[in-house]
């Protein structure tokens, strides 16, 4: 599993967030409307996760309380 590659692949399709790894589950943490109601975008995101070795990709929308933790140095 390669989290850096996954984050890069997701960013390339417009999903800019932090990926938290929990075993083979990748949790994509974002602070904006991700647009993932769109079937095509969702398919691309899941495909990117699987190509990088993850069995699951889940979206967590972070509110004000968790927002500060999203920005890596």
């Amino acid at each position, binding site marked *: 599993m390669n989290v850096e590659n996954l984050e890069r692949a997701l960013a390339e399709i417009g999903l800019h967030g932090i990926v938290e790894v*929990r*075993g*083979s*589950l990748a*949790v*994509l943490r974002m602070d904006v*409307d*991700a647009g*993932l*109601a*769109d*079937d095509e975008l*969702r398919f691309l*995101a*899941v495909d990117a*996760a699987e190509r990088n070795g993850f*069995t*699951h*990709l*889940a*979206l*967590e*929308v972070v*509110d004000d309380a968790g927002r500060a933790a999203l920005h890596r140095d």
Partner: protein
Amino acid sequence: MTDLRETSATSLAEQKERALIAWLRDRGSVLLGFSGGVDSAYLACLATEALGPDRVLAVIGRSASYPEEQWRTARDVAARFGLTVAEIDTDEMTDPRYVANPSNRCYFCKTELWSKLAPLARDRGLETIIDGTNADDIGGHRPGMQAAREQGVRSPLVEVGMTKRDVRERSRARGLPTWSQPSAPCLSSRLQYGLSVTAERLREVERAERALRDLGIGGDLRVRHHGDLARVELSPEMLSLWLSPIPLRMITAAIRAAGFARVAIDLRGFRSGSLNLLTEVTAA
């Protein structure tokens, strides 16, 4: 063309049902593990019709992992279709091997259940113990089935080749309210392997799933418990409706109110046995 295919499928399901009735009559009397789910509700009603209520005992095993809503469905079906029902308490929550939540957790739960039902069947003079496993359930990671086999439990739906689709079709034809009910395995199946099974975690899952139903989410639905994180699996057709910003906030608020600190929506949606994939469990 579509009508012909449906007619053919229905006819095949009817043939299997006739074989099932013959199978039940050959047994003479049965004790059934009865959860109120699609399969066991159908089997309980058919067995009662085939053998009569005095020769069929449908037993509900109650514990913290058995959803309250499922119990109400079971009692409702029993009342409407004249089933003879008994309830027993099962004690898997006191078994540390079960509480530790290994990938074969179901083995310990089912061993507890069937080991209590076997003497009950003997006491009541019921010849065969049966369960509602259907032909689609064969294969995959099913340690609970191993426990059933060890206790001599038979699975008549498997033996006559009835699939979930067949069971739903015949349930609908017979007017069973369970025909369109989503599959509802025990609440412990929502906990990530290795996360200990506690009554509080089971209640969190139950509250969260009920809250999502109350929002109007239909179809298959699971709240997977990953400790501080709830991972929500919705049916694929629901994902595009509920991943828009406002519905997503509604889901998040509902799950947090149920006791979870964090909420994530699985982007692939509902998958049966999803947690088996996560920990790379393979068929035994």
